[in-house]
């Protein structure tokens, strides 16, 4: 532990490098009156601490790095130094080419290593947790209070797992809280009040479908939607043996959810156990406008303003994936394609895959290819790649 003396309203400051996660430094300080504060470091700033007189913030930095940080409270500043330790063996080393991406990403790796990671723009690991059970990690996201990382440990290879969990890990690794959710699927989200919503597999009459669970902060689990709420069963659909609907990605959408259904090649808007609208193919209330491309076996997506970005795994002929962007008018039931990204040479992620809009650029995660591109004006300006044997799960941009 390094003991540092601060100044002004900022009292004693301590910076402790975590013994559990060697890339995390815990900064604690006191103030002489109840207030909030934050820490600036490495061109980043931690979320504001809750109002009080004792404060803790977690800094995520590359391994074996010495760096400066500044505690900021009500305009007062207190500057200090910290350092991180070495990474454990067994984590992949990433290659980065190009430039122009600086933010943090919470992204799991699956394969040679199974881990929830946070990476910086240089492809350096700034947070990690190895998952050594025989379960995969598909989604990792920073908790809404900024003090923990949540990830799912599940299996969608074959049958889902009864022992699957969402795991909450305090950023310094000092506390790990598993939330048992049998038959957990690929994706989950967290609401501002701490309620988690997770996709799970549901079986009825021997048929595999999907459901959504909400897990309240007190741990209460409630099923809030089932695929049987929206559609009549059609067990003749392609790949029905893997699941009639095969939900594979989830986002919050205002007071409801958006859910991607792989075997429907559709994205459904869900609230109050109903489908408000369904965009795509099977079970859809509307599809792409005439002249606009359709998607097939899509995974993650992003809705913002009047737009919908879709990671389209197999809409192109041959082994090629792409990104489609639509202008949606759900009241009118129209969806005009306004942009697409089809890289040359082609990229192909036959499972998973993610897309996000960053200012004027687009972050594309070709999960099965272990590749993330930041695309600007139709060209990748920054690329992060895994070595052979590791693929990415979904990608969550850390605010």
């Amino acid at each position, binding site marked *: 532990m390094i003991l540092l003396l601060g100044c002004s309203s900022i009292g004693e400051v301590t910076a402790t490098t975590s013994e559990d996660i060697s890339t995390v430094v815990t900064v604690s300080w006191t103030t002489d009156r109840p207030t909030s504060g934050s820490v600036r470091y490495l061109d980043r700033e931690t979320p504001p601490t809750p109002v009080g007189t004792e404060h803790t913030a977690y800094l995520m930095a590359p391994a074996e790095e010495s760096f400066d940080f500044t505690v900021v409270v009500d305009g007062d500043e207190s500057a200090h130094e910290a350092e991180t330790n070495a990474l454990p063996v067994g984590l992949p080393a990433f290659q980065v080419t190009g430039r122009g991406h600086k933010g943090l990403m919470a992204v799991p790796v699956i394969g*040679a290593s199974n881990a929830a990671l946070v990476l910086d723009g240089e492809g350096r690991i700034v947070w990690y947790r190895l998952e050594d059970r025989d379960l995969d990690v598909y989604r990792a996201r920073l908790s809404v209070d900024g003090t923990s990382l949540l990830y799912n440990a599940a299996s969608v*290879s074959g049958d889902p797992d009864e022992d699957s969990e969402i795991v909450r890990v305090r950023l310094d690794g000092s506390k790990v809280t598993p939330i048992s959710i049998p038959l957990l699927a690929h994706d989950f989200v967290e609401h501002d009040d701490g309620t988690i919503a997770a996709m799970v597999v549901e079986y009825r009459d021997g048929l595999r479908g999907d459901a959504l669970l909400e897990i309240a902060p007190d741990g209460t689990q409630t099923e809030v939607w089932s695929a049987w709420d929206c559609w009549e069963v059609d067990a003749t659909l392609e790949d029905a043996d893997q699941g009639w609907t095969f939900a594979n990605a989830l986002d919050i959408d205002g007071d409801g959810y958006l859910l991607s259904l792989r075997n429907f090649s559709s994205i459904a808007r869900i609230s109050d156990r109903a489908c408000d609208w369904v965009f795509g193919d099977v079970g859809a209330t509307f599809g792409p406008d005439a002249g606009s491309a359709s998607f097939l076996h899509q995974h993650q997506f992003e809705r913002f303003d009047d737009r919908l970005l879709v990671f389209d795994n197999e809409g192109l002929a041959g082994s090629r994936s792409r990104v489609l962007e639509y202008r949606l008018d759900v009241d009118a039931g129209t969806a005009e394609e306004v942009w697409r990204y089809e890289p040359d040479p082609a990229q192909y992620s036959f499972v998973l895959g993610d897309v996000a809009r960053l200012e004027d650029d687009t972050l594309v995660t070709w999960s*099965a290819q272990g590749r993330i591109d930041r695309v600007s004006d139709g060209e990748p300006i920054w690329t992060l790649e*895994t070595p*052979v*044997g590791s693929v990415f799960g979904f990608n969550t941009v850390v605010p």
Partner: protein
Amino acid sequence: MRVVLFCLLACGRTLELQDAHNYAYTGDMSIPSTATASGEDLSLCWEGLVEDLACHGIDPATDIELLSLIRFPHLDEAEVEAGISADDLTQSQLDGYVALETGGETCAQLSAFDFFGTPIDVPSEYTAEGGTYLLMLSSGTEPGQGARMLQFLAPSADSDVDLVDIGDGCGTLDFEARIEGSIAAPEGPWTIDWTALSTNGAGNPFEPTLVDRVTVGFFEGRSPEDLEQSFLDLELEATESLTVELSEVSARAEVDVPLRSGGTTLLALRCGTCSNPAPLFLTALEPR
């Protein structure tokens, strides 16, 4: 010619490893290739696989635990071989990966392979136009690790072969090593420090994050030249050996082994997750 670098680089009890100490390794992969029918299911059998890539004897039923089929859309077979030799292939150079745990069997159908529960669609995904297909037969079930044998499958419209017998791996890796560097070492224990290394034994950039174990082996009655043909078998061939498994990425390790005369002591930095089994660094230690 053997080069002995004295003191300066190995004074005190810290052995500072330098590029000049390192062995020189060249390895050519000659992975067998079998033309098969395109878009057709295949029977893959490996009961005749009794020696692996390093010419070690194996039991095909128990040592081969995972089959992986990897498709490289834009690389030919020679480029894949070069990438494996240099250990610099990235996941994005492949666009298809399916696998199958063998469960003790010695034959499998290609159509049984899958990825995250999504089965291969053989008619559309195993085709002459798809690229280069590499079949990896591995111990353990970690993707991309533990390779015991490699085999190209080459779907062709001109072939009607639907049974592939995978033979021995011995001879697939043709290597040459020259152990010319050495370090005059004091009595241990030592701190082995590889901060200064910039190239590995194959002449490629040294990647410190790959080092996950340090091995020191004593080979009684043998010279470095004798060991140039068996350096892949440090632990098997050594009269005595000690391997330190690293728990964290580091450029240093503590090793305590008495130096003996009457033979050769080799120090190796190794990578257990690399596709190429050659040590990243290898040198002889000589009692000072």
